[in-house]
């Protein structure tokens, strides 16, 4: 996937990301700046109406991918194509800002405590001037609130009066306000209790079917990601290490990191837990500031050989629609 110049958008995909890089300059001493490679050369596509799951441990760059894709951070390099058009400054960007939205992880800090729920939900409408008059605006607010299972009286209340699950619904209603086609869900359920998670997940699925949305679903909980995603991408230290359909990834994981990640999940079933063969990885995740040479996973990998320490493996198609980056596949 290095044909960056001659890239032709494929009409079957809504979002196409090519060679996305995001480096943050970090001051590491007097007049010393080191580049933190949060996302390093990541490419993927999302079809219309599809959910792509993005998993990885903390610090692997999954949130940065989501935010850089939406141009919340300026990409260091790489291109984002949306609906056949390259996203860049100008009218395309304005359209993209409307059509691509974000749902945040923390439903407590992502809602302004001084604004009523109605105003929070209507903010994208106000910013993009989507409603002609006040009546239309308040009707739209009611419509949005009912879409996420809240009542219209709740529009005049403040965020602190709501529980975590309800707040997340408000966040989703806000994301829907500008009639988007693509939503980045950044760990939308990880701050919620187990009994509430299922409600929000079901709602996200219903909205997807009703409105034909595409999701990039970022999470660290593999069982949740498996449930909601059509395809899953696994990230490690800024690199994408594996990408396959959700079932394929669970039944035939190829990358050693994916294999150990899957085996590390505690299964809520005592009998299966006893039989489960767990591969416990040694060591910690290296700091992205001092990422290992070659394959970034080589310091913890059981299959590591000399080549892994020197050469970065290419992210290539190893089986139909199954991509992985490893020298030993």
């Amino acid at each position: 996937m290095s044909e960056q110049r001659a890239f032709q958008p494929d009409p079957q995909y809504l979002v196409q990301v090519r060679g996305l890089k995001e480096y943050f300059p970090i001051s590491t001493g007097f007049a010393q700046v080191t580049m933190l490679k949060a996302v390093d050369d990541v490419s993927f596509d999302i079809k219309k109406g599809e959910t792509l799951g993005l998993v990885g441990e903390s610090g692997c760059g999954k949130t940065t991918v989501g935010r850089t894709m939406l141009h919340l951070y300026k990409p260091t390099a790489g291109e984002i194509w949306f609906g056949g058009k390259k996203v860049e400054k100008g009218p395309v960007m304005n359209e993209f800002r409307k059509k691509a939205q974000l749902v945040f992880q923390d439903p407590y800090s992502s809602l302004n405590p001084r604004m009523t729920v109605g105003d929070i939900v209507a903010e994208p409408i106000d910013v993009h001037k989507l409603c002609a008059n006040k009546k239309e605006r308040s009707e739209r607010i009611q419509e949005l609130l009912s879409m996420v299972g809240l009542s219209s009286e709740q529009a005049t209340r403040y965020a602190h009066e709501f529980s975590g699950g309800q707040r997340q619904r408000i966040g989703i209603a806000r994301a829907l306000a500008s009639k988007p086609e693509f939503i980045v869900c950044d760990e939308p359920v990880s701050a919620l209790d187990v009994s509430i998670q299922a409600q929000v997940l079901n709602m996200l699925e219903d909205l997807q079917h009703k409105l034909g949305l595409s999701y990039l679903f970022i999470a660290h909980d593999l069982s949740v990601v498996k449930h909601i995603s059509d395809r899953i991408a696994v990230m490690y230290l800024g690199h994408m290490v594996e990408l396959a359909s959700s079932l394929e990834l669970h039944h035939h994981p190829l990358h050693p990191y994916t294999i150990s990640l899957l085996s590390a999940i505690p299964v809520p079933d005592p009998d299966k837990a006893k039989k489960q063969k767990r591969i416990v990885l040694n060591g910690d995740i290296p700091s992205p500031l001092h990422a290992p040479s070659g394959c970034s996973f080589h310091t913890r990998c059981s299959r590591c050989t000399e080549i892994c320490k020197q050469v970065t493996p290419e992210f290539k198609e190893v089986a139909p629609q199954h991509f992985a980056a490893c020298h030993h596949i």
Partner: protein
Amino acid sequence: MQHLLEVKDLHTSFFTPNGEVKAVGGVSFNLDKGKVLGIVGESGSGKSVTAYSILQILTPPGRIVSGSVKLSGRELIGLSEDEMRKVRGNKISIIFQDPMTSLNPVFTIGNQLIEAIVLHTDRNHQQAKARAIEMLQLVGINEPEKRIHQYAYELSGGMRQRVMIAMALVCEPDILIADEPTTALDVTIQAQILELMMKLQKTLGMAIIMITHDLGVIANMCDEAIVMYAGRVCERGTAPEIFYNPRHEYTRGLLRSIPSIDSDNKDRLIPIAGTPVDLLNLPAGCPFAPRCERAMKVCLSEFPSEYWVAKDHIASCWVNVLENVGTPLVAVNGQDAAQSSATEAEETKQ
């Protein structure tokens, strides 16, 4: 047989300006030597407060209202602060969820470990240092001689949690309370820490109370489990009983609502309807009744008492009474009655 830890009808409340918050409302359980007990529940279910009440480390306005906590037959509630201090760390220790905030940032790891050893044992500083290095080695920290001179910020999350475990086990307690020890950690690091805890449990033989919201952790680690909701125990029993024969609607709902990593069908999840209860205005009856599909009139007005529903399995749900499963706990005295109730429950099932 005497249990290592016996908690009976524990009530703990927080007396806030807005009224009394009944964080724990009548929790009873027993813990035997060398067993791993899991307490599972959502946020606000009272699982952490139960642990803090056992150790009496509640912060005001929290207070134990009534109940009894017996450690090897000795009543802990009512002990003076000095006596309690000898229990904490020596007999029962605790590790917390966030290893960053529970370590002191201005002292080295070694400083904090040695302090705990010198306070609780009659070792001198030199011996304590040797013991600290030995403990760090035991929890799998490499180069412990170097590490004891480091500060918390120099260690990763998993390493910090290992230091916390070392600190908790330094006086070889009988019981280790782990309050969400892996919630702040990544999946692969969580696997490391859980494996370490199981290994230490086998070598040192202490009992563990594992507090978590993750049913997967319970299934992997625990012999017995307690399911809590709104400060009440929904059911308690052996882990297989809780997972394969849940006898409370909340547990059933919880098990149904989590997506399974093993199943390939993408059916809709079955969520538990409604929102968690407001602990300031607890309903009169079963706190789960407003969200329960099978709630009856009696559920709304009266709290169900605990019933033996099978051998080693107690549940408080009126549905069991309706279906005539189990025998009341109150009428039971001792093991024999438990046995008979179990057979009775078996019969009812057939």
